């Protein structure tokens, strides 16, 4: 490889010291800023939770519903949502993988399944939100009051899962755009499927954030 010979020179005005394309690099830089945003959300959740620890609701006592099932099923629905998102991450890697191999049909298949996963997740989130808002004994959960405990709990719930849900929604839009491009042969003409990889980075990041939201909002 020629880049081992020029490796020592890479920082002296040599091109591509990261051996990554401009677009991929920029996606990574965006994801760093987004990481810090979500970290700030979860850390401030931690602040409020420690401050109001005497009146903070327990998530497993708030989110106990499961569609078409009666009784209390703590963690079950959110575990299903996590499974859906992990699964859609897997279909995404498969799409990226077949993109590298320039196998258009398989990219279309796995991208479509990723979109289905994203849509399922968004639907689940809508269901979770409506149950949360519906509240207890006729008292609805809003930004200024909630029947489960301290109002900040509802604020953080709407804000963090809402911001994450908006990321998922944006991701689904990106995926639909690149799926159309794949079908239209845009990347065949370009000679590579790197756009799938870039959107894939974003999609995995959304999964990554959910893994942390799941732990810090529902488990801990």
């Amino acid at each position, binding site marked *: 490889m020629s880049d081992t010979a020029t490796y020592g020179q890479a920082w002296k005005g040599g091109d591509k010291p990261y051996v990554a394309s401009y677009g991929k690099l920029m996606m990574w830089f965006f994801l760093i800023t987004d990481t810090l945003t979500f970290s700030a959300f979860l850390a401030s959740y931690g*602040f409020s939770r420690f401050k109001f620890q005497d009146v903070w609701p327990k998530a497993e006592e708030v989110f106990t519903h499961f569609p078409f099932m009666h009784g209390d099923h703590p963690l079950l629905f959110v575990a299903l949502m996590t499974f859906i998102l992990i699964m859609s991450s897997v279909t995404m890697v498969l799409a990226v993988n077949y993109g590298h191999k320039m196998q258009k049909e398989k990219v279309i298949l796995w991208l479509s399944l990723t979109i289905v996963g994203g849509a399922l997740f968004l639907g689940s989130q809508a269901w979770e939100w409506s149950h949360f808002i519906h509240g207890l004994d006729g008292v609805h959960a809003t930004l200024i009051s909630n029947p489960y405990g301290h109002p900040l709990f509802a604020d953080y719930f709407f804000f963090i899962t809402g911001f994450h849900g908006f990321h998922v929604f944006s991701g689904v839009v990106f995926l639909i755009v690149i799926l159309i491009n794949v079908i239209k042969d845009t990347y065949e003409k370009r000679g590579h499927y790197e756009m799938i990889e870039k959107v894939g980075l974003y999609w995995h990041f959304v999964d990554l954030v959910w893994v942390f939201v799941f732990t810090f909002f529902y488990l801990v």
Partner: protein
Amino acid sequence: MTDEQDKGNWWIWKVFWILLGLTTFEVLLGIYKPGFLNETVFLGTKLLNHVFIILTLIKGGYIVLVFMHLGFERATLKWTILLPAFILVPFLLFILISEGAYAYLMM
């Protein structure tokens, strides 16, 4: 790049099973809350929560290093991405969590 293109898809499914297994384990711990883990307090929180955090970091590591391919990128890129998070996130957590505990005591 070419090396892992040729090794098929088994590595994707391996990571999938790891993520699924760890998540299932977390959910079971969250539902059954083993007494010892749930009652021992260490560094201001239950031992169970430490277990959750460690498992979550392992899951996050697999997603970032394998799914997002960062583990196979040039070391310069890897550290450019990871170092800001490794430095700033613990700093942020330290400030906000310790101040939250202080604000509780001052109420």
